[in-house]
């Protein structure tokens, strides 16, 4: 009997000890698909002994929904876009990073330090920033591509060969820019026009897809693809004769950010991960992989030289990039209705 008790106690102790130890050495990341090189995660594990588990999502909205449906308390960090950082802050989903908790906070570039969506960077650090526009296959269409009409009122040879990102925020922004109406407009006539224009434009679209946005351009399934600039650069580098457009009406500019989630089970590890990403060499590795731009000082020596002259990274003089605004509930309700009308 005594023997039995000792064995059980030992087993329990081992089990408990093991679980405590593994809790110490874990980090659970909720991240966009294809957005961080595996080697970088391996490097983090090698340096800190922290094992990284990662789940992925394909839109800011999908990430928010999944966190609200019970993901809080599971993940330590997520990587929302600018407007989504603001939404998550309003929803009380983010933990505050106290002054001095991040030793590499000084590496953040000045212009990305005091941003409107997170003044003083209390909840987030910059990950990557870039733009959302579209690419056109130059074998199929040789005309002027720097207009949003390519997406919303395309020439005959492009009709039916367009893939849109399955992302309400970005589609609505580009549509508003095309019509020349403000974002989150409360004007009924303008909203009605937005709805009608999108319904008409849909007839020209082949599909809505985000995760295969690059692949359908490379394979030639579509001739026009709404896409993020870095993802689009990869499509070009994989051999597609595609050109990234900078529409005159404007295009979307965004910044993705690593945020510390409320109730993070491994808060200390999350901070270590943020510090790790703020090292110029590591952030440069992300940029080299994802083909966007870093918000960290001193990355230049580590960057792939191609990036400096990459057309997707270098908008022409006077190009107009616009951040997505967060609409209030009444307008968002109409946006949701329009989105349903478009996608039904």
């Amino acid at each position, binding site marked *: 009997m005594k023997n039995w008790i000792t064995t059980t106690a030992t087993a329990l102790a081992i089990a408990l000890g093991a679980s405590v130890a593994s809790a110490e050495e874990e980090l659970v990341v909720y991240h966009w698909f294809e957005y961080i090189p595996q080697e970088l995660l391996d490097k983090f594990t090698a340096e800190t002994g922290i094992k990284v588990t990662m789940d992925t999502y394909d839109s800011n909205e999908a990430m928010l*929904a999944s966190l609200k449906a019970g993901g809080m308390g599971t993940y330590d960090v997520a990587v929302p876009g600018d407007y989504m950082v603001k939404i998550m802050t309003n929803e009380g989903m983010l933990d505050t990073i106290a002054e001095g908790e991040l030793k590499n906070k000084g590496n953040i570039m000045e212009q990305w330090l005091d941003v409107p969506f997170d003044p003083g960077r209390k909840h987030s650090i910059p990950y990557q920033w870039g733009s959302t526009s579209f690419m056109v296959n130059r074998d199929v269409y040789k005309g002027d591509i720097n207009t949003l009409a390519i997406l919303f009122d395309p020439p005959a040879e492009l009709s039916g060969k367009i893939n849109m990102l399955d992302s309400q925020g970005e589609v609505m922004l580009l549509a508003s820019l095309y019509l020349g109406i403000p974002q989150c407009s409360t004007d009924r006539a303008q909203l009605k026009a937005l709805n009608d224009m999108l319904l008409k434009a849909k007839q020209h679209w082949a599909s809505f*897809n985000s995760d295969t946005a690059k692949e359908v351009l490379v394979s030639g399934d579509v001739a026009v693809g709404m896409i993020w600039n870095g993802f689009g650069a990869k499509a070009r580098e994989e051999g597609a004769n595609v050109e990234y457009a900078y529409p005159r009406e404007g295009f979307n500019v965004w910044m993705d950010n690593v945020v510390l989630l409320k109730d993070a089970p491994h808060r200390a590890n999350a901070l270590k991960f943020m510090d790790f990403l703020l090292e110029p060499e590591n952030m440069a590795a992300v940029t080299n992989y994802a083909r966007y731009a870093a918000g960290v000082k001193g990355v230049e020596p580590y960057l792939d030289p191609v990036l400096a002259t990459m057309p997707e990274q270098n908008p022409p003089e006077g190009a107009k990039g616009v951040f997505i605004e967060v609409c209030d509930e009444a307008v968002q309700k109409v946006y949701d209705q*329009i989105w349903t009308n478009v996608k039904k």
Partner: protein
Amino acid sequence: MAGGGGTGGGVSASTYAGLRYWLLLPSWLVLGFIVLAPVGVMLIYSFLTKEFRGGVIWEFTLDAYDQFFFDRGLFGDEPPKIEWTYILIFWRSIWQAGAATLLALVIGFPTAYFIATRPERVRPIWVFLITIPYWVNLLIRTVSMKFLLRDQGPLNDFLIWTGLIDTPIHVINTDVAVQIGLFYSYLPFMVLPIYAAVERYDFALSEAAADLYATKWVALRRVLLPSVRPGVIAGCILVYVPSLGAFLAPDLLGGAKNFMIGSLIEEQFKGNAGNWPFGAAASMILLTMVMIILLLFARQQARAEREG
């Protein structure tokens, strides 16, 4: 049954007679927990108020069902008209799933018949071969189907190479692609029950029919088919019901342009709209519909048995 268990070691069914209900308890718990509880949660959610940006507020409302059946315009303040959007989505799903089931039946029945008529020794190998592709995840199989069907894909290349067509057939991102995808996703669910039924069928009956001057077609229709009917019906239900709620095929093969019920519901929970009560209401309406279809099947089956 009662005698069968006795050979092992003197244990018979009567040994446990007094415990019968207690022994059923685990299965009731499992059923209650994994079947009834989630459906119950959905039922409750469908009557709750939508929270801005996903989630629910615990206030009773019929808004979700109202949204499903009534169209109040873009701004929600016009007098209600009948909302055709979602009825159309349901109708599309019924039609798409029906087409896929028909396709699965047309291909699956001869396949099952073929396997069942092989020598007993090799039948398991054929069944095994049918299931091999299904060891791979559904998502991967659907994406592969996308590669096969695309305009510059192997299927079109092959057809052009044979000279049957000179320009690629445009299938991807159409309803046909969705039907092919659904058919392919659930084909084994058609083949296996029919195979099980045909395997038990006594082929001497077909021979007897032939001796009595039945043509092959008549023998198939009047003798074989009625005998294997339960297998065929089971197969149809097993293909039809999951096809009805599928969202991978319409998303990946249909281009996510035309909602099916499954994609509509998915969008409410993880997509841009984030309207949980509405997603729950659509689920409940789908569930009710499936239940009615199954009840009609069961009633017809019972009637057929009474008459036969």
